[in-house]
């Protein structure tokens, strides 16, 4: 079997394709998916990814609970979501097949690691007969490759031994898929060499497997149906592929740099927020101090102290951690220090489903503090947007001297998409209200008339010595005060900052007609599904528009005007209707809540269907929240 003996393969051109890699947690599916994504990015496809981990703990190999998957959509146009259902499924073992096959498009391509379909594994996955043999896969284009056998042969000369010989089988799969989709192998090879060192046994084994898979594709008749996807017509510019947590971390660095402030980021590890700490810890050369501390309360405490000392104090966590931080955030609010607080939401309540996504911490962020303590909240709509949202959070925190909450979620955190690099020189400078001493008495609670920010007087500055604290204090002087009218005054004054922030927010932009039957209003990670779903419905002739909030508190000031243009308002959320509740209370609009609480993102098709049902009055979509 040499190249020459083969006929030229069929090349089918597609505008988009959805792939899902599925295997055991130990099979390296996330890595495989990421490398495939990267190779696709390099040749200019647009893409969106969705990694899905089994649960927070490693399950025994081969079980359903241990299945890990990574889905990516690649396209020659500006796609938004990682796709609803895969066109191609790569299944590394019976459990992966079992838990993913139902999602595969009928007629879709199924690529299977045949070696894994032995009795023991079939049993672990709960199969009573071998699906590769019992005809149950007849609806799909199924291709079975002896991936383990071939990997073993491929790595024979590289020096790996024993169990490790099988470790590279994901690279075999990647090589095969690269051939089918006409992806270059060089970016993968470069990455492997960079990661493991070109002389390492592991690099050699991975590369040998990769090429074995690729060559297996070339040489096997079965794989002669190839797909081409042209580079996407993205806006001109320089792109990189980025996950939400990475974008957030970089955005924090950029925001603090724009404000000319050092970062102190204190955190306690928690899924899915840990990788922000991990990413920031790698950039100490930016003057970023990262502190892994004893718990979430300490983390936000450290951030308060750092901000008091003139740093931009930051802390990041997920829901359980945000709950724990409540009391200290209330202090930060009361002493009016800048701070960025990140909550990468996951499915709750309690420990819930820690690796799954949800948007159910919104009301905790809004109201989860004792006393009257309103805080600004912003939320990125996509992984890449987390960069600019982080910068925006820094801007609000420093400009208005207030803690700011960023609500991201597990989906945004781990998913990736191409990000057009912004012109970094054009990031707006953020000016911080550092106080300087003059002859007059220093008043720590005097205010900038425009922003209502109080002056930030940094320890070490002569002449500005002062004390702050969590007790109610008199306007201007900050001296402890239990005066009833002062308390009322201060309460409204602190709340008034939100109005000032609102005044500085861009109006909400609408995708679609400015008036019509239905406005779909979303926030956070539901963006892609809503945008795709509403556009699809609009193409079918429905009068629907999409608005997406980046500022959850305060709202963009034009929101009431926007509402006025539509018959109905639909709010899809990955919670029981939390934003819907806020909107109903504030605008007295009979917002229709569309909740999904499955630990999974919306699919574009779900949104499209709900849009149509809502407009036509079918389905159960008329129920209020």
């Amino acid at each position, binding site marked *: 079997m040499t190249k020459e003996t083969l006929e030229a393969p069929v090349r089918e051109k597609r505008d988009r394709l959805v792939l899902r890699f599925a295997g055991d947690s130990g099979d390296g599916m996330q890595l495989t998916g990421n490398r495939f994504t*990267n190779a696709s990015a390099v040749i200019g496809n647009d893409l969106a990814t969705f990694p899905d981990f089994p649960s927070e703990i490693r399950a025994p190999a081969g079980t359903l609970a241990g299945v890990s998957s990574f889905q990516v959509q690649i396209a020659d146009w500006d796609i938004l979501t990682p796709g609803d259902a895969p066109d191609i499924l790569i299944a590394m073992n019976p459990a992966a097949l079992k838990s993913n096959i139902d999602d595969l498009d009928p007629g879709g391509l199924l690529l299977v690691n045949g070696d894994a379909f032995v009795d023991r594994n079939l049993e672990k996955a709960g199969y009573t007969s071998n699906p590769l043999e019992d005809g149950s896969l007849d609806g799909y284009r199924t291709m079975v490759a002896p991936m383990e056998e071939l990997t073993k042969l491929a790595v024979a000369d590289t020096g790996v031994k024993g169990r490790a010989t099988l470790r590279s089988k994901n690279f075999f799969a990647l090589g095969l898929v690269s051939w089918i989709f006409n992806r270059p192998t060089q970016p993968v090879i470069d990455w492997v060499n960079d990661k493991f060192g070109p002389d390492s046994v592991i690099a050699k084994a991975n590369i040998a497997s990769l090429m074995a898979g690729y060559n297996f594709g070339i040489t096997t008749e079965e794989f002669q149906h190839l797909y081409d996807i042209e580079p996407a017509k993205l806006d001109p510019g320089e792109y990189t592929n980025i996950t939400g947590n990475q974008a957030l971390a970089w955005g924090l660095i950029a925001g603090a740099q724009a404000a000319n402030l050092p970062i102190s980021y204190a955190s306690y590890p928690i899924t899915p927020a840990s990788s922000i700490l991990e990413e920031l810890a790698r950039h100490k050369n930016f003057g970023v101090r990262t502190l892994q501390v004893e718990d979430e309360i*300490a983390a936000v405490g450290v951030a308060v102290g750092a901000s008091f000392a003139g740093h931009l104090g930051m802390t990041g966590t997920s829901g359980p951690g945000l709950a724990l931080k409540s009391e200290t955030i209330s202090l930060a609010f009361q002493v009016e220090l800048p701070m960025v607080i990140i909550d990468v939401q996951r499915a709750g309540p309690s420990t819930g489903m820690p690796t799954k996504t949800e948007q159910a911490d919104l009301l905790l962020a809004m109201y989860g503090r004792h006393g009257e303590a309103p805080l600004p909240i912003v939320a990125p709509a996509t992984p890449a947007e987390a960069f600019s949202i982080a910068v925006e959070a820094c801007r609000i925190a420093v400009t208005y001297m207030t803690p700011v909450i960023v609500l991201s979620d597990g989906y945004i955190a781990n998913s990736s998409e191409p990000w057009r690099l912004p012109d970094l020189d054009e990031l707006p400078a953020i000016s911080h209200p550092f106080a300087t001493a003059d002859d007059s008495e220093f008043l720590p609670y005097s205010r900038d008339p425009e922003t209502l920010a109080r002056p930030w007087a940094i320890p070490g500055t002569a002449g500005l010595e002062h004390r702050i604290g*969590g007790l109610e204090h008199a306007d201007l002087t900050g001296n402890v005060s239990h005066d009833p009218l002062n308390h009322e005054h201060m309460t409204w004054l602190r709340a008034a900052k939100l109005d000032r922030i609102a005044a500085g927010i861009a109006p909400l932009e609408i995708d679609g007609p400015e008036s019509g039957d239905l406005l779909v209003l979303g926030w956070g990670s539901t963006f892609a599904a809503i945008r795709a779903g509403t556009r699809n419905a609009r193409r079918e002739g429905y009068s629907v528009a999409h608005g997406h909030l980046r500022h959850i508190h305060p709202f963009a000031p034009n929101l009431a005007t926007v509402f006025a243009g539509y018959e109905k308002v639909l709010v899809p959320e990955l919670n029981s209707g939390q934003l819907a509740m806020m909107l109903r209370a504030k605008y007295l609009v009979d917002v229709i809540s569309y909740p999904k609480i499955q630990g999974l993102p919306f699919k574009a098709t779900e949104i499209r269907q709900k849009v149509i049902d809502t407009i036509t009055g079918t389905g159960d979509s008329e129920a209020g929240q």
Partner: protein
Amino acid sequence: MTDTRYERSDFQSDQEVRWCPGCGDYTILAAVQNFLASLDVDKEDHVFISGIGCASRFPYYVNTYGMHSIHGRAPAIATGVATANPDLTVWVVTGDGDALSIGGNHLIHAMRRNVNVKVLLFNNQIYGLTKGQYSPTSELGKRTKTSPMGSVDQPFNPVSLAIASEATFVARTIDMDRNHTTEMLQAAYEHNGAALIEIYQNCNVFNDKAFAQLTGREERDANRINLVPGRPIVFGANNEFAVILDTGGARVVATADVAAAAIHVHDPANPDPSAAFALSRLSHGPYGPTPVGVFRDVDRPSYEAMVKQQLVDAQAQKGPGDLSRLVRSVGTWTVD
């Protein structure tokens, strides 16, 4: 700059001091203010962080930077201050409830990290501010509003706990003894790293005379054991008591009964904390002979120094942070 450029009044804020008349907090405040005035440190470089409790009102009365924060969290907040700016002199003022009940975890972690903060733990063995409930240092059997039949909680020994938390400096003093307090402040100040001073403080409203055995005219001679580095530990009006250490721990003996060489010579600088720990066991609450002074004072790099060093090393290795390189670090492609 001279050594005497400040007066106590420079460290007095314009706020009225609001403790109960007769409270031990007054004496400590005066000692600290005088001590600060004696230092050659710009007053704007001091930061006082406190939690909640009577003791924690302290920062309001000291004319430096300060924060009266929330219950139990002062060590964490102070860690943030100290790490952000290692040039500041950071003080934590806390009570036995604040530091050892709700704040116990932050305290022990600050100790092990060796954050360069000076913790003044005002131990009055009661919750003063909330009006007299027992605290984690109250003696077993103590009757208070929340323990009308007597507390069933074994108290902590703050010195033992700090030593076991890998603290590099641990001392104890008494509110009434201004000179000793000042000595301890000086030693803590000079120590590079976390320093804990347990200050026995009389709450004359809810737990009056808790420390009478150490301060009472008749009792104190027989009970107060002064720890002096390099010196054999003897005490009593005529040094009639001595402390020996053996495999059973530290014990008080009659000086006359032991050979001079058998008397334990105090060495707070011993890297092994075992002897310091053994000495701490002489007291469990001030009921009987109780050591005061520096139990432990050893060198270890401070947390913030190490944090800072890593920034310096990172810059040396990778150059100063370059945002435009960072965003390109995982590879880019261009669309025209």
